[in-house]
C-alpha cells in the first residue's frame, strides 16, 4: 500500500493481505540498500496468521519516494511519523542490520510504540570502512558486490537458495545497486548512539544472530543480547543476510518469540 509520510509517498508491504490495525502489528525494517522484499518470506506468514504487517521501504528506497534519511536519528523520527500516519500505537519491531539501529532510535523517541524489539543480524554500532562508502558513491553496484560477497554465508555463495530456482545474490544486487547505498552506509558509520539507546529499551527483546556474519560480527550482537537480556537465537551456518538466506529459520525464531510476547500480554491483561 502507499501512504503519505512527511509529504512524500511511502510504500509499505503488508504481507499480501490488507493491513488491519486492530490486529497486533509487526513492523519489519530493512537493512542498508535493501527494501521490504528482504522480508518476503516472513511477512506473508504473519499477515496470514493473525497479525497486521508493515514492511515499509525507507524514504528514497525502491518503491518509496522522497530523499533518503541522512542519519539513523532521522530514520527513527521517520518511523515515528510513519506509525502515526498509519494510526498504529504499538508494534513488534523487527530490524535487520541498519533497520535495527533505526528501531533503537524509534524506541528512544517513542518507547511505548515498541511491544517488543527484535534484532536480526545486527549490532549496536555498524562501523563502515570509508573506502566502501566512497565505492558506493562512485558505483553502488560495485559496493553491492563487495557487501554481498561478505554478506551472504557459504551456502548462498555456492548458489543454494531457500526458494527453489532463485539466486539471492542477484536479487540483492539488483535491489542494493539501485538504492541509495552510500547514504545508508554513511548513516551507519556516523551512528554512535546505539549503546545508549539499548540501555533505554524496556520492551521484551530478542536477537537472531548469524554464526558466519562478517558485516556485524556475532560478538557485537551477543554483547547487545546480553545487555538487553534478550532471547537469543544463533543460526550458525548462515551469514549477515539472514532474512533472505535463512528465511524459514528466521521466521520460526520470530514467530516463537512474538507469539510468546503476545501470550504474556494476553495473560497479564486477563489477570
Amino acid at each position, binding site marked *: 500500500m502507499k501512504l503519505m509520510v512527511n509529504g512524500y509517498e511511502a*510504500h509499505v*508491504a503488508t504481507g*499480501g*493481505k490488507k493491513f488491519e490495525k486492530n490486529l497486533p502489528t509487526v513492523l519489519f525494517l530493512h537493512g542498508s540498500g535493501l*527494501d521490504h*522484499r528482504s522480508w*518476503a*518470506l516472513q511477512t*506473508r*506468514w504473519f499477515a*496470514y496468521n493473525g497479525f497486521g504487517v508493515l514492511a515499509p521501504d525507507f524514504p528514497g528506497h*525502491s*518503491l518509496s519516494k522522497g530523499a533518503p534519511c541522512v542519519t539513523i536519528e532521522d530514520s527513527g523520527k521517520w518511523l515515528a511519523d510513519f506509525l502515526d500516519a498509519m494510526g498504529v500505537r504499538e508494534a513488534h519491531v523487527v530490524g535487520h542490520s541498519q533497520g535495527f539501529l533505526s528501531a533503537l532510535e524509534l524506541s528512544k523517541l517513542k518507547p511505548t510504540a515498541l511491544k517488543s524489539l527484535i534484532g536480526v543480524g545486527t549490532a549496536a554500532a555498524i562501523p563502515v570502512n570509508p573506502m566502501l562508502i566512497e565505492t558506493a558513491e562512485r558505483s553502488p*553496484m560495485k559496493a553491492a*558486490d563487495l557487501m*554481498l*560477497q561478505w554478506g551472504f554465508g*557459504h*551456502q548462498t*555463495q*555456492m*548458489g*543454494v*537458495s*531457500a*526458494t*527453489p*530456482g*532463485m*539466486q539471492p*545474490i*542477484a*536479487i540483492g*544486487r*539488483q*535491489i542494493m*545497486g539501485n538504492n541509495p547505498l552510500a547514504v545508508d552506509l554513511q548513516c551507519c558509520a556516523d551512528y554512535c548512539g546505539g549503546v545508549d539507546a539499548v540501555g533505554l529499551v524496556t520492551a521484551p527483546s530478542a536477537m537472531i544472530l548469524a554464526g558466519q556474519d562478517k558485516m556485524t560480527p556475532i560478538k557485537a550482537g551477543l554483547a547487545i543480547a546480553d545487555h538487553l537480556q534478550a532471547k537469543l537465537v544463533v543460526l550458525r551456518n548462515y551469514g549477515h543476510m539472514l532474512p533472505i538466506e535463512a*528465511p*524459514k529459520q528466521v*521466521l520460526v525464531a520470530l514467530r516463537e518469540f512474538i507469539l510468546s510476547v503476545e501470550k504474556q500480554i494476553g495473560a497479564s491483561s486477563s489477570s
Partner: protein
Amino acid sequence: MGRSSYYHPDTMALHSGYVPESDHGSRAVPIYQTTSYVFDSVDDASSLFNVEQGGHIYSRISNPTVAVLEQRLAALEGGSGAICTASGMSALFTTFITLCSAGDHIVSSGQIYGSTATLLRHTLKRLGIETTFVSINDQGALEGAIRANTKMVFCESIGNPGLEVANLPQINSIASQHGLPVVVDATFAPPGLCNTIESGANVIVHSATKWIGGHGAAVGGVVIDGGNFDWEASGRFPELTEPYEPFHGIKFWEEFGPNALAMKIRAESMRDIGACMSPNNAFLLLQGIETLNMRMKQHIANTKDMVQWLQSQEQVTWVNHPDLPSNPSNAIARELFPNGAGSMLCFGVVGGRAGGGAFIDSLKLASNLANVGDSRTLVLHPGSTTHSRLTHDAMVAAGISEDLIRVSVGIEGIKDIQADFANGLRAAQRVAESQS
C-alpha cells in the same frame, strides 16, 4: 547487468546450487525421483502453498534436483532466478504465455528456429496473440513494428540457421524506450560465450538439450529471469504488478521485485501448463554443465578450423559463420562473442539441393539429425526438415537457401571431421558433374 555468484564460471558450472546434503554427504547431486514431499504439519503445508516459505510441494511445480539445475543456470547467466521446463519449446511457450494475453502483440526477429516461428505465427495467433516479424538489426523496422499492445521484443542471440547475431545493446536501447523487455533465445550461445544479460537481455531462454546438456541424452529447457527489468515502470504488465486472483491477490512485482517473472512462471505456468522437467533429465543435464566451458573451448576451436578448411574446398560455394567478415552481423558478433560466436556454421555445395543431399548421405562420422549442440558433429538440411513448414518468403527472411547445410561442429578430432566432410564433398562433386 547480472551477477549471481562471485565464483569463476568454471567453478559455478561444477558447484552452483548444491552443497553435499547432510544425511549421506552425496557429492553428486542426488536424483529426487519423487512426485511429492511430506509436509511437517497442516500449518507447514498451508504456508508452503501460500509462499510464506520456500520449499517443494509437488514435482510439477518444483523438484530439488531440478532446482539445483535452475540455480546453476541462473548463476552461470547472472540471472535472479530460473525455471526449468520439459523442453526449449515449452520454455518459450511458458515465457510467451506468462507475459502475453489475447489481444497482445510480439515483435520478433524473422530469423529464428522454424518451430518457434510456427508457434508465434500460428499457435499463438490462434490464442489471440499476434506477432510481427522484422529484420531484428534493422532499427527502423524494429521501432516501426512496436505497438501500444506490444509486450516484448523477441530474438535469438544467434539466429537459427541464418547465423545472424542480434545486436542486443541496440535492440535493448529501442525496446527500453518503449518499456518493453528483450526476450532472447540464447540456445546457440550457451553460458560463457556471451554475457547475454549484460548485453541487453531481460529474459533468457535456452533449449538445455543442446550445448548445456551436450551429450544428446536429455531434452529440457529453461527460462532465466534477468532480474533487470522494471515491470512497474513499464506500465505494460498488469500480470505482474496488479493483484493475481488465483493466488490470494498476490502482486508479484511488489512482493518479489527482481525475480517477479520467475516466481510468476513457477506459480502460474508450472501449475497450469505443467511442462515440468523430470529430475532424471535434470541430473543428466547437470552432468553436461559440469564440462560445458571445457567443451565449448573445443567446439569453438574445431569450428574455427572447419570454417577455414571449408573455405579452401573447391566444392564449397559459400560458408557462413558470424566470425567471418562476410556475415552481415560480424561486427556485433566480434563485440558480443570475443572468443568466437558459437559452433554452428552453414555452407553450400556444388550441385545445389541435390548436391547437399549427396553430401549429407555420404557422411559416416557426422550424424544427419534434427538436433544441435551435441558433442558429436551433426548436420542437417533445414529447407527440407526444421524449416520446411515455412513459406518461401519466410525461408528467405530466416536466411535459408535451398543448398544450405547446417553443421553443429562437434569436439571429435578435427582431422576426422575434415576427412568425413571431404568424402561428402566428393559425393556432391559427382552430383554437380552429372548435372552439367
